């Protein structure tokens, strides 16, 4: 009986530990999504550029799409955001595809006098134990 209690306690501890680890992981990737959200909302790429992976898949409306280095991605998205005046953005959907977190949401911009709705999709990947932005699409 004692043995069963011990094993049960150990299992509980393990489960708790695992859950905590998952929460920490989720908090970490949520931090990246929050940075993207705040950056797109303010039209300020510097708020999330630090999270770019070495190679980022970038797709912008009316622009090139493909894999770019983090420096290229920085300037491509900067140009995209500079040309627009942000009117509001937040992620509305968070999800996991094969343990890879992604988030989507609709951003509203003013572009050449028009209001423009752009769907933002961001997916992360893990690099050296940290969550980094692997894909970011404005479509």
């Amino acid at each position: 009986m004692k043995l069963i209690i011990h094993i049960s306690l150990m299992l509980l501890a393990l489960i708790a530990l695992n859950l905590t680890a998952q929460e920490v992981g989720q908090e970490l990737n949520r931090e990246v999504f929050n940075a993207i959200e705040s950056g797109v909302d303010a039209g300020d790429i510097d708020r999330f550029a630090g999270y770019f992976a070495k190679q980022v898949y970038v797709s912008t409306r009316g622009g090139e799409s493909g894999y770019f280095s983090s420096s290229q991605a920085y300037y491509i998205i900067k140009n995209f955001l500079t040309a627009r005046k942000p009117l509001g953005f937040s992620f509305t959907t968070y999800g996991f595809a094969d343990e890879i977190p992604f988030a989507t949401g609709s951003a509203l911009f003013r572009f050449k006098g028009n209001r423009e709705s752009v769907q933002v999709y961001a997916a992360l990947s893990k690099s050296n134990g940290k969550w980094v932005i692997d894909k970011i699409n404005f479509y």
Partner: protein
Amino acid sequence: MPNLISNFYSQFVKRRFFYLFFFILFLIAISFLVENFFVKSIEIDWETISIEKTALLISQSQNHFQNFQNDAASLAARIARYEPIVKSVSGGDEQLLFQSLKIFEVYSGSVEVYDSELDLLGWSKSIGSDIKLDRISPKPFSYIKQGSIFSWLLIVHPILKNDLPIGYVFVKKLFDVNYPLSNRFISSEIFEEAFTQSLDYPVSFDFSDRLKASEVKGVISIPFKAIDGSFLGYGYRQAYTKGAVIDEVKQNFLSVRVFLIIFLSLFVLFYSSKIVHTRVRFFYRALITAAVLWIVRFLWLAIDFPTGFFPISIFDPSYFASGFGFGIAKSIGELLITSIILIASVVYIGYDALISINRNSKLNLNSVIWLIILILISITFLFLLRGYTAIVNSGVFDSNLSYINPEFPPFELLIMYLCLFLISASFVLISTLLILYSYWNKNNYLGWLFVFVIFIVASFIYGELHPNPLTSNLERSLIISGLLIIGIISQKFIKHSKAINTKNALLFGMSAVLLAAYFLFSAVQFDMRSKLKSFASEVARPVDNWIAFMIDEALNQIATKETADRLKSHSDLKNYAFTEWAKTILSREGYNCRVTIINGDDRIVSNFQVGSMTTIEQKPTIRASRSIMVWEEEEGFVKHYVGFAPIFFEDKTLAGAVRIEVSATRGELFRSDSYEIIKTYTGNDFKAYYKKLYYSEFINDWRIYTSNRELASVYRSIPLADSLLRNKNNFFVEEIVDGKYFETVYVKSTDQQNKYIALSGERGDVVRDVLNFLRLSLFFLVVCCTIYFILWLVIIGYRKRKFEFNFRTKLLIAFIIVSVIPIIVISYYNREIATQRASELNRTNLEKQTDVIYSHIKKSFSLKSDYLSNSELISEIAISTGIDFSLYSNSEIIASSKPELLDAEIIDRRISPDAYYNIKILGRQFFVESQAIGTFEYLVGYQAVINKQDQLAGIIAVPTLYNQASIEEDLQERNTYLLGVYTIVLLIAFSLGIFFAGQISKPIRRLTDAAIQVGEGNFDYKIPSTRRDELGKLEQTFNEMIDEISQKREELIKYEKELAWKEMAKQVAHEIKNPLTPIKLAVQHLQQAFKDKADNFDDILKKAVSMITEQVETLTRIASEFSNFGRLPSRKLEKYEVNEILKEAIHLFEQYNNVNFKFNSFAPELRVNADKEELRRAFINIIRNSIQAMNEKGSVSIFVEQVDENVQINIHDTGQGISDEIQNKIFEPNFSTKTDGMGLGLAIVKKTIDDLGGAISFTTDKDTGTTFIITIPLVTDNE
């Protein structure tokens, strides 16, 4: 330095620039006020402004639309009136009609010609889907027709004969794409895009609901009319808002301010260089100019100029963007500006540094201090090298440019080559200077060896301390050795204080070419390997979440109530899958996919597929749950992403389902039909670097699958799978398998233990690498030569010289032309032949394929058109033969093994006019032509199908759509070798040209040098001739001639000397005689007075003594002047500071109260080698002359500066100048305008300055006075 700043400031204030500077600042300030005024006006008069802007928008849009229509209408009118077309329509001459229509292919839009019964007679160029003429009118008219995917502007123009319509010309232009379709499917310019771009605002068109303007608030409806004035439809745009208009105004004012700042910065740059041009030492001038250049550079960056103003490709970060230096390399264009400023700064400062190193050959430094300096310099050098290699690496890693793609580089890449060359040249120059500054005795090779050892030791320590250096120890050692040699050689090339001469420019340029090519090639290799690793990880990833997400989004868009209603109504849903696909992100991103819509009876009602898809055997079956799954076939070789969503009615009952499938074949990674994400990921360099890429899978170290079928039996287990590697998630190895060299990345699978996937890139042999390296060198060489040529033209233009070449250059140019032209011609023909052979091979293959299809068709059908149109049987033939094909009857398609693109109207259903003309009209059996979908070009082979009655029953069309990529790969491979070989041949031709030009022109150059030497008075010069040919005889004769001239010259000198002495004696006698007469008279007068015992003897004696003394003084002065003039060079030469001597000379004239002396020197330490007394006398002489020229009233300004390696002294007086008649005599002896001198003063000054190796000249003007300009060579402390 304070003196420098104060002078700079005074010059700045004096010039007009000062006023302009503040005027521009004033304008900038004013612009804020005006902007505020405009913003307030908009806020107050918003109603009126809104109405005016809306009216303007409507009229602009209508005019633009009208112009677009008029272009098409005028084309239609021209065709309808074109005589051969009228003749062919009236006479039914089909051949003439097709020939005539071909002329109009150059215009955008497709053209069709119909007869009066609306039967199609001929057509040219097909764009997209097939739309038939269904309306006619005796007058030209236009209308818009919406297809399922495209909208078209259609112009109809009657063809008249005797004022009666005998036919119609139908011009069709692409107007709009109804869906956000990927550009890969669009072959023609879209009007809507061009319209938006030219007006800079988006307008959406809707011609379906013609008579209704939008009632939505905030939308402007723009009515459009047809060419006959009838109403066509509306365009819509969002109405202006006050905020948007104010933003626009602010943006415009911001642009004005930016423009003013750019203007201001250019003025600062231009005038600062002018102000400092002659007033300060070269080194300070270089420093100031470089500093101003960099300030302007960063100012431009701050205002986002030119990137924000010129939206051209070289400023697009998708080509290249580096994080260096706050954005100075954020695009190719910005990098170009930075590299130009960098090379300008380095060359400007380096020029002075090279000379001063050359001059300061003996620095007396303490050994310890020297060692410390040496170590510091070596560390600085290593950081510079790191920076340089990091930039080159960034040029590859942060760019999507294809450096080793054998095609001719596009414009962006050429600019990138230029940038990298300029940066490399800057690095070579600055590093060489650093190394040279670390030691100064250029002839002591032991000292240089010590420098080398210190640098190497520092390099090895750097390698140990830095965990991941961008260069290896060997590379750094080679670079240090190379730079050291360049430094020593460059010093040898400095002649006449010209540091940047042709030889040094070539030396630094060629070194930069080699360095840039080497590091770029290394960076490409490194980048390819890292991309191979990333790519392997990407492939190993079980699910691509982006694809999964897109499928999910598409399912959401399609599985709607609207689809349920369509399923319920049992309407024709044939194209429904396509139209729904076209609305999704899958179509915009251009992914190959299949969309299937199933009804409630589990039956497929609509299906659409784009691109080649590997079919999953599993039949789509209706299910109530939504899911996205990934299937792997052939052990993960093929990945299928399948999304499934049920479609519900409003009452939640099941209406049907939608299934979306995206598949990717790993073995086909680099083929044109692989999905976009992989194509963009690898880039073109990948294709050029790796010959082929293979995918393999290993379980328990044993390979269970490989796409490399050739090596299937050889290649069985993971090599080097030791325990160290086993613990890693991925590892890179270089392997040789069956004589082939592979670079392979092994990645541990995340979904199965003991499973690895491997991606192997097959490399070419070493020769291929060498050729690639040479190819890069060739491009850098071309860039280098272009820069030299442009610089040469600029220098020639600046110095206003004629285009003159020396004999050797002429010979070299002749050699190069003679050798390069045949190479260019051969390479052109070789390439043409290669392309022709490839084309012939394609043709043969296509012919074989069409034959195979023909024989199958013959076997399967009786060649009746009814049978031919059986698509299912056509598909069966395609599957059994592995060849996709289409069948045409007359001009219309009747069956295709891939009907989806036709159903989607992406491909025209009508046969191409050329194919129809060649097969049907000219009766040819086989015909090949090039076609395109979007930007993708491919070949199509057409074969006539003849029935039993020997009539044309149909036309088979086989596209090479799916193997065009491999044909291109073969051509690229061939190009790599050819370009490399041509580079070698060109280099050999250049080297031989330089060698032979040098050899042939050598005797001529020796003769020229000898003539120059003799001209300068060196009669002992002899040409060292060893030749026995005509040129040798010429050299020998020249030497003999010089001997004779030398002999004659000596005789002449002797004679002249005698003559001069005679003249001198006469002159001396004459000059002495003049004062002797009054002396004699005075003595006689004194004697007489003494004899007469004159009462005033004392007075007479006093006067006589005074007279004699005065005349004796004159005699003394005459003697002194002759003595000075004729004095032999027994001077006491020492180093003296010029400023000090000048100040002493000025001091002597301080008693002249009416003369104002100004003394300015911009160089405190200017030492010359001179006899101090003699030089002082020379200065005194000029100053005295100046004072006398002003009648002892005015100002004398003395200005001292360093000009190159000389001190320049300007002595300016405010006298009346020197008259024209005597200007060329003032330096002659015995010439004087004064009564009391011998006229030897300025002659002596000239002789003094000439003897010091200097020069004296003057400028004079009767209004401003005279300036004597004296230049004397400077000496250094070590001389």
